[in-house]
């Protein structure tokens, strides 16, 4: 008896995402949470500033200069 072809199955093949592929772990990518653009709250630039290094005072600069002169 001729076997009937399951057209439905041919059109919509059932795809199963394999968790294991030949012994190696198939890691499902983690879903990223996306914020709607209108829900973003604009933050001031100062929130992202890196604390600048402490600049030397004029006295420190002067002392450094004096030390240089003494050395010469």
């Amino acid at each position, binding site marked *: 008896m001729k076997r009937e072809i399951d057209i439905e199955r041919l059109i919509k093949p059932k795809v199963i995402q394999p968790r294991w592929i030949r012994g190696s772990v198939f890691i499902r990518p*983690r879903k990223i949470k996306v914020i709607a653009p209108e829900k973003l709250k604009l933050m001031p630039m100062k929130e992202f500033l*890196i604390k600048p*290094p*402490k600049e030397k005072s004029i006295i420190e600069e002067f002392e450094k200069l004096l030390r240089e002169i003494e050395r010469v």
Partner: protein
Amino acid sequence: MTLVIGAIAKDGIVFGSDSQVQFWSGVDVKRLGEIKIFKIEIPKKQIKFLVSGAGSISDIQWGLTSLYQHFLVNFEEINPNDITPDFVREIAERAIFILHQKYNIQRYREMGINIGDPEEPKFFSSLFLVGTILPSKEQLLLRILPNGRSELSENYITIGSGSAYAELLMKLVGYSKEEEWKKVALKIYKVIEAAESVDPNVGGPIHIAVLKENNEIKILSEDEIEEIWERVYKDEKRD
């Protein structure tokens, strides 16, 4: 108009930038001493990012905001050890893509402009440079394009109008990612200094920021750069 270089070092990630910005105020005006390297901190996960952008201040402010808020939301329920380079890259891409979607795609539709039209205006057109050291100690350096796609680098990335000079100069100074951050910082400093001498769009005091292996971020002062020059480089030459 800018020049930013981000580079991987053996023991950290180094960013360097010029500090010249240009804006239209009826006439073209330039301003020096502007900071172009920023940080994003996610304290609970002990992860920090160095971020820089090339483009308008408004774009950069939105980019930083979107990156920060997306990192915060996505890292909320995650074990720090599960933060992979791919995951970070995907978040960063999405964070910039939604700005492209809002400022370019949606606006084009509102204005009846076809996407891909050569005359299409660019409302959001900034490039971003993101560097981080993951809890697994993996280093990650990304260039994110305005459309949200990204390019991963295993050594260094340059962005801005001075990039072409910087690309060549980085080769000439003999950059290597196997070197300590101090040497890489010095080389970046010298490259930006040289680019400033030929590119009118690159100028002002040079800023160098470092993200160290212990997750500490610092900006180097001119004195510290000078000290590295004296101690590291000149000593080596004497030997």
